[in-house]
């Protein structure tokens, strides 16, 4: 009897641990070989056959197609430089110089990877349409309400993800340090 109870307990606990760990890793997007620069994180190996089993399982579950290594690299940010998670009711400013790439795009998604509805129908900026100052620096304002200059609307949703995709770039699997690929800073401006 004790043996039976013990094995039941063990099996239930094992299932809970195993499935719980799988669910956690796949929803959090755990993968190896992360390249973090400031608030931005990329997984360059996910765009090649060296993709690890966790990233493979994650993309199979979400149904997305990763950016291929010969094409470019995608950086994700879910919080600003100090670690405050993005809140669509607050405003954030991204500032800096363009990273080393032939083209880049910056897109705002909800946590499920959908574009966010807004009045001016803007979901992203490309490197070609951004307004810069004389030195080539730019500021992108991410805010629920209209801002002058480069305004990327949040639509007022609670949580969002920013994806910075660099196309035809030297930044990739071999990049090790922040110096090789400086990424723009993200600062929270105000919260209403």
């Amino acid at each position: 009897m004790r043996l039976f109870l013990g094995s039941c307990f063990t099996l239930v606990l094992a299932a809970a641990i195993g499935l719980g760990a799988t669910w956690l890793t796949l929803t959090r997007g755990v993968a190896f070989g992360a390249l973090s620069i400031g608030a931005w994180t990329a997984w360059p190996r996910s765009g090649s056959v060296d993709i690890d089993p966790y990233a493979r399982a994650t993309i199979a579950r979400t149904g997305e197609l990763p950016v291929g290594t010969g094409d470019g690299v995608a950086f994700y940010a879910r919080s600003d430089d100090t670690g405050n998670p993005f809140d669509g009711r607050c405003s954030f400013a991204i500032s800096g110089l363009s990273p080393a790439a032939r083209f880049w795009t910056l897109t705002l998604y909800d946590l499920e990877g959908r574009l966010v509805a807004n009045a001016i129908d803007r979901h992203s900026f490309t490197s070609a349409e951004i307004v810069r100052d004389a030195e080539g620096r730019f500021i992108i304002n991410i805010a629920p309400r209209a801002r002058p200059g480069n305004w990327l609307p949040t639509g007022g949703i609670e949580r969002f993800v920013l994806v910075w995709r660099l196309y035809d770039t030297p930044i990739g699997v071999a990049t090790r340090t922040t110096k090789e690929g400086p990424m723009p800073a993200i600062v929270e401006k105000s919260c209403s």
Partner: protein
Amino acid sequence: MILRVFLWILGALVLGGIVHLSTVLAMPQAAKQDAYARLAPVAPVNTMTTLAAPTAQAAVMPFMDPAFAVAVCRYDLSNAPLKLTAPVSQSYTSVTFYTRNSVAYYAINDRAAGRRTIELDLMTTQQHADMPEEEDVTAADRLIIESPTNAGLIVLRALAAEPGLMAMARRALGAAQCRVEPQAKP
């Protein structure tokens, strides 16, 4: 008693680890809504299809880049190799090859291709090995890609640097073709 409980818990941990690893490894095969499955209803086999642009209301796949026009060829090499022809658009253009389970195994952009048209032959390792030798020589300037799986996806992306250029990017992709090569004459 305490030792016995400890042993049961230790067993549960080991077993849980096995459950975790096997579910992670099985996920790509078990997933019902992966990219290939999402594209199956909109993209016929071995035909280039331009996808609808993602909007806040609807998108074929999550995390699509809205600045790009996208065309997909859902291929099946079980009968014959495939030939891909893609004219390069004015702006940035790339071709990425994915296996049935969304692993990107090859990607090339317009600059790396270095021509006005990207031309590629896609075949399985077996089909490449079966190719007559003379043909391999005459085809020295042909770019041959080996697909690790019979089925998979070719994704063409053309950048519209400004929203006004989207129509042009989509037109450029409209001229792209993927078709099964006519069988070699006996």
